[in-house]
């Protein structure tokens, strides 16, 4: 055990990780607890979007909470600022900082830093700061808000984030990025020797019941080919799906289905509705099945039953947990080259198909369905194993150890 007191701060709880950011954060906390003597985690989060959390987490309330519901795409900024500006949050953070007295504070994403920096200054505390980025947030926020139709707010929020991202990159004792591209961007913003710790995945085995459920689905629906896309309703996920596969699915054979797993189902379910009188919206469901949110066991059962895992990622920073999950699953993968950022070494694995235009992506999916499955060599198996968290987060752990 390395004797260090580490406080990790995030803007969402990790009691029941669902989306990629939560999974990464949960993996970091779990790994740190195996390596460092004292590790604590606190989330300052909007309770309207996360219902499952620990007692030590801080759900924002009152005006701050209202702000997060009024402006759902900027909840992370609001929660980060609340560390200093919301008296209730500030009081609990002050107590935590002054009683725990961490040697190191790791901010997951830049947002907690917004309130943490002025609070530390006021408390005259000087722990080491670790910048643990998942994306280049100022770019990501600009994309998300602009695509959601908030052009003015996008610019304002992006400028604010860029200011703090630059400040943090300049002043942090360690900066961690999830891809070499992000690391270069952080360096551009002022980070000294940022390390790269790509996203990884934990190995899971689906129960027999979970596998049976999907076998039954295949039999009942007379479906012989399944391509699964696992994703949250995070805008880059559906942008990517629409930019590659699209909303017209007549190219899919009648015995094939695209399965949407996770809250991305909600997006399509709510958007592709009959009342809009668009043929592509109603026929989408002739070949796509919204499996919805599901337990990890059910999800791994679905992945086990799938022929192809889809990675139609075209934008968004960071590296994708989905990519790691797909690699570890051993299934055929149809992906954009963008989805393999920081997993470039894995692109040559057998059963990996890469296409970057909508036409090529759709054609490749059909080709992948029919292509014979190729077995990985021992070396390739070993390489695939390296997508697990303990390997991926190693550069981060080494960096923190050295502080």
């Amino acid at each position, binding site marked *: 055990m390395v004797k260090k007191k580490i406080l990790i701060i995030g803007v969402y709880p990790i009691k029941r990780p669902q989306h990629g950011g939560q999974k990464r954060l949960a993996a970091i906390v779990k790994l740190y607890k195996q390596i460092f003597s004292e590790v604590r985690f606190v989330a300052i989060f909007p309770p309207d979007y996360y219902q499952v959390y620990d007692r030590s987490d801080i759900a924002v309330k009152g005006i701050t909470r209202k702000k997060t519901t009024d402006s759902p795409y900027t909840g992370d900024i609001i929660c980060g600022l609340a560390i200093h500006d919301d008296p209730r949050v500030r009081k609990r953070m002050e107590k935590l900082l002054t009683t725990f007295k961490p040697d190191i504070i790791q901010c997951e994403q830049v947002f907690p830093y917004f309130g943490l920096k002025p609070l530390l200054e006021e408390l005259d505390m000087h722990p080491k700061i670790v910048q643990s980025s998942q994306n280049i947030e100022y770019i990501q926020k600009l994309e998300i808000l602009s695509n959601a139709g908030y052009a003015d707010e996008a610019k304002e929020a992006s400028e604010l984030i860029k200011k703090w991202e630059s400040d943090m990159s300049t002043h942090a004792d360690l900066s961690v990025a999830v891809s070499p591209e992000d690391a270069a961007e952080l360096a551009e913003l002022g980070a000294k020797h940022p390390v790269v710790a790509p996203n990884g995945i934990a190995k899971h085995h689906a129960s027999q019941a979970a596998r049976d459920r999907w076998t039954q689905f295949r039999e009942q629906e007379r479906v*012989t080919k399944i391509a699964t896309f696992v994703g949250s309703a995070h805008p880059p996920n559906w942008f990517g799906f629409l930019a590659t596969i699209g909303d*017209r*699915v*007549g190219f899919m054979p*009648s015995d094939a289905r695209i399965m949407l797993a996770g809250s991305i189902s909600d997006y399509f379910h709510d958007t592709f509705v009959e009342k809009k009188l668009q043929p592509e919206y109603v026929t989408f469901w002739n070949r796509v099945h919204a499996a919805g949110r599901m337990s990890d066991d059910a999800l791994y059962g679905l992945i086990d039953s799938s022929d192809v895992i889809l990675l139609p990622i075209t934008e968004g920073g960071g590296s994708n947990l989905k990519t790691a999950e797909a690699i570890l699953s051993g299934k055929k993968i149809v992906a954009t080259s963008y989805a393999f950022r920081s997993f470039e070494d894995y692109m040559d694995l057998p059963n990996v198909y890469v296409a970057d235009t909508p036409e090529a992506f*759709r054609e490749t999916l059909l080709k992948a369905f029919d292509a014979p499955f190729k077995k990985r060599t021992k070396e390739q198996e070993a390489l695939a194993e390296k997508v697990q968290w303990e390997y991926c987060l190693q550069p981060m752990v080494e960096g923190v150890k050295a502080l």
Partner: protein
Amino acid sequence: MSAKKVWIDISDISVWAGYHTGTQRVVYQIAKRYRGQPNVDYFVFNPRSNTFHQHSFDEVIQRVEAAAQEAEAGAPPPKPSKSIRARVMVARVYQNSPEAVRKRLTPERRTLIKRVLKKAKRTMRPPQPAVATPTTPAMRFGADDIVLITGKAWDYRSFMEALRKDKLDQHFKIIQVVYDLIPIFFPHLFGLPLFKPYTQHMFEVGALSDGLLAISESSKRDMLNYCKGMLIPPPPIDVIRLGDDFAKVEPVKPGIKSLKPGNFILCCGTVEVRKNHQLLYTAYKEGFRRGLKLPKLVVVGGKGWYTGDVMYQFTHDPAFRDMVYIGGRSDQELEWLYQNCLLTVYPSVYEGWGLPIAESLAHGKLCLASDTSSMTEIAGDLIEYFSPYDTVGCLELLQKYMDKPTLAKKEAQIQKTYQPVAWDHTFTQVKKFVDKM
């Protein structure tokens, strides 16, 4: 090894007790001509069990012929009452609702619907022997078989899904007749509940069929556009021409005193928003405003989608006291109307074919029709067209043919030139396509 068999879907007409109209006529005329051909059999779809069943076509023929004989003898066509039609509609909606929707209904509503459904089933019993309930066990089509669907399979929500599942196992071939894609491209002209099932149905028609027979170049174009839009690789599509050599019946004058030979213009077709009766109303109004003396307007057709307003105007506008609306009518009455009208007018916004135009021409009568979709294919330059959105264009054509010599000249040209298409010809086209498979 067994020879490949052609299976003909007669689901539509196996439950129909009245006269055949539209698609039913196509199903019947094609099925009838396949009778006696080697390796041909008939089937119906059972939407309750989602299964296909072999079915006797002889029963259908007997029933249709009996109905025709009754009609010859002067019996009125069987016509269900409004309450029965309402119940049938409720029953259909309920039966075709997905299980999830049925589950969401409160127990009280479900009980009510079930009660209505029960009554509907009782009252739906047609006067002729019904053949709706399959009497044979569920069957599977053979691997080399061809399934020919000429009717309204979209009426059964689960038809294509059942066919898809069977086809995956058996790899038989499917040929379907494409009537039109109007509910997809012009959803505002239909009841909104039709949009989703029809769009999804036609998606599978494109995706699952090995060959399609469009009833017009326009419908073929629409189907190809739809397939292209949905990224469906289109199957081969041929165009067939529907027959319009209708059986001759004795004309019977409808019981309306004011109707006299040559004193009216006829507009046939369901009174629904797509048929664009509003344009006729407005054209007549403009004519009245210009001081023109226009012949009586006779509108024939059942009431359909979204025409409450125009029917209200026709019925309550004092200027239209002379107009005649005939809802249900017998073939004999229709014959009299065609024989004795001055000309016919067909202002429909969009059609898959446009049978009333062909019917008019087959009776030697000029039809002034819309210039969209398939309507220009029927007679080309032989008749005259107007934009379905151009009231004055329609009025000016009406005015032109109020001149008796001009109309007589046109009629003579039609009678000399127009050749009704025999159903035998349609059948030959269908059979040739099927045999090519």
